[in-house]
C-alpha cells in the first residue's frame, strides 16, 4: 500500500508487510521516514491512497471503531496534556469498548492490574495533566493494556522513559506477547533496544519504503545502518544480540578518533 496526506506526495510508497503471530516487532528508521504514518494506517486513522490494510483478514475500513478497539490497541507518541482525569480514570477509559454504562468490578480490576504492571499504582489518584512525560507514557501503555486486544501498536513508547524503564517496558511487552500470543508492534529510535528485544525488526528508509525486514541480526548490520542513517558503525555481538557501536560521527567533526555507544546494551 501507499499513503500520503492531502495534496502532498506520498509518505509511504509500495509498503508490503505482513505481521503475524505472537512476538515483538520493532519499526526503526530515520526521522520523517513514515514510521508513525505506517502505524496509523495499521490502526485505520490514516487511509492508504493505494492498496489496503487488513487486520485478521478483514479490511481495517470495514470495522466499526468499537469493534476494532477490541482487536487493535494503539498507544500514540504523545498524550493530551489537557486531560484532567485522574490516572485511574484515564486508564479505565481503555475499557470503553468492553464496558457497559456502569463501571463493572472486572473493568476496575483490569485497570488496577495494568497500573501495577506499569509500576504506577501509586499514581492512581493523581491528575494525568500533572504527571511527567515519562509517567504519561506509562499511563498510556497501561491504557493500551486494559483494552486487552490481540494486537498492540505503540509509537515510541520508551522515548521519555529512563533507561531502567525502557528495558522494563520493552521486555514486559516482549514477554507478554510470547505468553499471551499478542502481536506487539512498536516504533523505536533506539537501535540497541530493538536489537536486544525485538523478534522482528522492520527497517524503513526514505522515501517511505521498507529497507529490510527480519531478525535483528539480519537487519541491524553496518551496511544497512550506513545506507539508511548515513553513519558508519560496528555491530558487535552482545550475548547473542547485535549491539551497534557508532563511530566516525564525531571523528569527522572533532578531528579525533572516537567511538560512542548508542543505547544501553542491557
Amino acid at each position, binding site marked *: 500500500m501507499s499513503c500520503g496526506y492531502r495534496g502532498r506526495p506520498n509518505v509511504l510508497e509500495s509498503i508490503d508487510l505482513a505481521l503475524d503471530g505472537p512476538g515483538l516487532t520493532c519499526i526503526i528508521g530515520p526521522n520523517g521516514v513514515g514510521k508513525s504514518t505506517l502505524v496509523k494506517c495499521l490502526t485505520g486513522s490514516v487511509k492508504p491512497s493505494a492498496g489496503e490494510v487488513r487486520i485478521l483478514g478483514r479490511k481495517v475500513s470495514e470495522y466499526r471503531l468499537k469493534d476494532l478497539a477490541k482487536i487493535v490497541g494503539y498507544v500514540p507518541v504523545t498524550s*493530551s496534556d489537557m486531560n484532567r482525569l485522574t490516572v485511574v480514570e484515564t486508564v479505565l477509559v481503555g475499557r470503553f469498548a468492553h464496558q457497559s454504562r456502569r463501571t463493572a468490578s472486572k473493568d476496575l480490576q483490569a485497570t488496577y492490574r495494568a497500573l501495577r504492571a506499569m509500576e504506577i499504582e501509586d499514581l492512581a489518584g493523581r491528575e494525568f495533566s500533572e504527571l511527567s512525560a515519562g509517567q504519561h507514557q506509562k499511563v498510556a501503555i497501561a491504557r493500551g493494556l486494559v483494552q486487552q486486544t490481540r494486537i498492540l501498536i505503540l509509537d515510541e513508547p520508551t522515548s521519555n522513559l529512563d533507561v531502567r524503564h525502557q528495558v522494563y517496558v520493552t521486555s514486559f511487552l516482549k514477554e507478554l506477547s510470547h505468553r499471551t500470543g499478542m502481536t506487539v508492534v512498536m516504533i523505536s529510535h533506539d537501535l540497541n533496544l530493538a536489537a536486544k528485544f525485538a523478534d522482528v525488526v522492520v527497517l524503513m528508509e526514505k522515501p517511505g519504503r521498507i529497507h529490510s525486514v527480519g531478525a535483528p541480526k539480519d537487519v541491524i548490520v553496518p551496511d544497512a545502518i550506513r545506507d539508511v542513517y548515513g553513519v558508519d558503525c560496528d555491530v558487535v555481538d552482545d550475548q547473542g544480540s547485535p549491539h551497534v557501536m557508532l563511530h566516525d560521527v564525531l571523528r569527522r567533526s572533532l578531528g579525533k578518533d572516537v567511538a560512542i555507544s548508542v543505547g544501553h546494551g542491557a
Partner: protein
Amino acid sequence: MTGDIVRRSVDAWMDESEEFEEEISDFRKGTLRRLAFIAACIAAAFIAAGIGMNIGDYRIDFFETYRVVWAHLTGNVYDETADWIMFQWRLPRICCDVLAGVGLAAAGAVMQSILRNPLADPYTTGISSGAAFGATVAMALGLSLTASGFAVVANAFFFALIPTAVILAVSKLRSASPATMIMTGIAIMYMFNATSTLIRLYADPDTQAAIFAWTVGTTDIREWSHVLMMTAFVIAGTFACQLMARRLNVIAAGDESARSIGVNAERLRVIALLVVSLLAAGIVSFTGLIGFVGLVCPHIARLIVGSDSRYLIPASAAFGALLLLAADIIGHVVVYGHSIQVGVITAFLGAPILLYLIIKQGKEVWRWNPSSKSKGCRAGTGDARTCSKA
C-alpha cells in the same frame, strides 16, 4: 534480574484472580461522595427556591410557599391570592432560574471537555454575539422571523445558531479540532459584535436601553409558554449531554487515543457542539445573556467531583441551578424595593469565585481525598498532590 521482575509483572497482569477489593471499595466510595454532592446541591436548590418564592411585597411564609405550589399542582387551591401571585409572578422566575442554571452549567461542562479549554463556556463559539445580534435586529430595526410576541426570542435563537453552523461548515472543510472551532467562533463573534454595535449607534435612546437590558440577562419571565419551551430545550439538551458523558471521557485522552479506544473524536465534537448550541440558544433567547454560570459552575464542580464527565455534568447542572437561584435572591434583596438583573449578580459572584479558584487551585483545598485519610497515596481516587511524586 530484570527478567525475573518482568516475568513476575507479566504473571501479575495475567492473574485475573486478584480482586483489588480495597482499591475498588475506595473507588466506589469516591463515586458515592460525588453523588452525595449532587444530591446536596439539589437539596440546597430546593431550599433556595423556597426562599426565592418567599421574596416579594405580598408576604407568604417560607413553608407556605411549598404548600401553595403543592395545592395548585394537586388542584386544592386554598388561597387564591397567594396562588395567583405565586404562579403569575414568582414561580415562572424561579423555574427560569433553575432551567437557565442547569442548562448553561451543563453546556459549559461539555464545552470545556470538547474544546479542551478551561475558559470555554456555552458562549465561546459565538452563541452570545449571535443571539445579541438577533435581538438587536428585532428591537432596533423591527425585523423578525416571527410575529411580534416572539420577535426577539425567535431572532435571538436563530442568530445564536449561525456561528455554530459556520463552525460546522469550516470543520467539514478543515478538521473538527478544538483550535478550528474556537478560532472560527471568535471570527464570527467579532463580525456579529461589529454589526450589532453599528446598528446600536443609530438606534434611539429607548431602543438602546432596551437592547442593553436584554444583553445583561434576566430570569424575570412571566410567560409560562416561555418557561415550557425552555424546559423542553433544557431537559432534552442536558439528557443528551449526559448520554455523551462516557465518550467525553474518552476524548480527554486525545483524538488519536480516542479513535483507538473506539470513539471518533471529531464526530463527537460536532454532535456535542450542536447539542450544546441548541441548549444554550434555547436559554439565552428567553433570558438574554447570563454570564459566568457556564464558566464557573463546571470549575467548582470539578474541584469537588473531579473531571469524569458522568458526574461532572450533573454536578455542574445542580450547582448551576443553585448559583442562579442564589443570584436571583441576592438581586431581589440587595437594594430594597428594587431588583437587580440576575446577569449582573452572576457576574459579581462569578468573577471573584473564578479568581479565588485560580489562586486556591494550586493548594487543592476543596478536593476530596479518600486515600489521604490514613493510607497516603494508595491506588484509588484521592488527591494526588498530597502524594509524593513517583
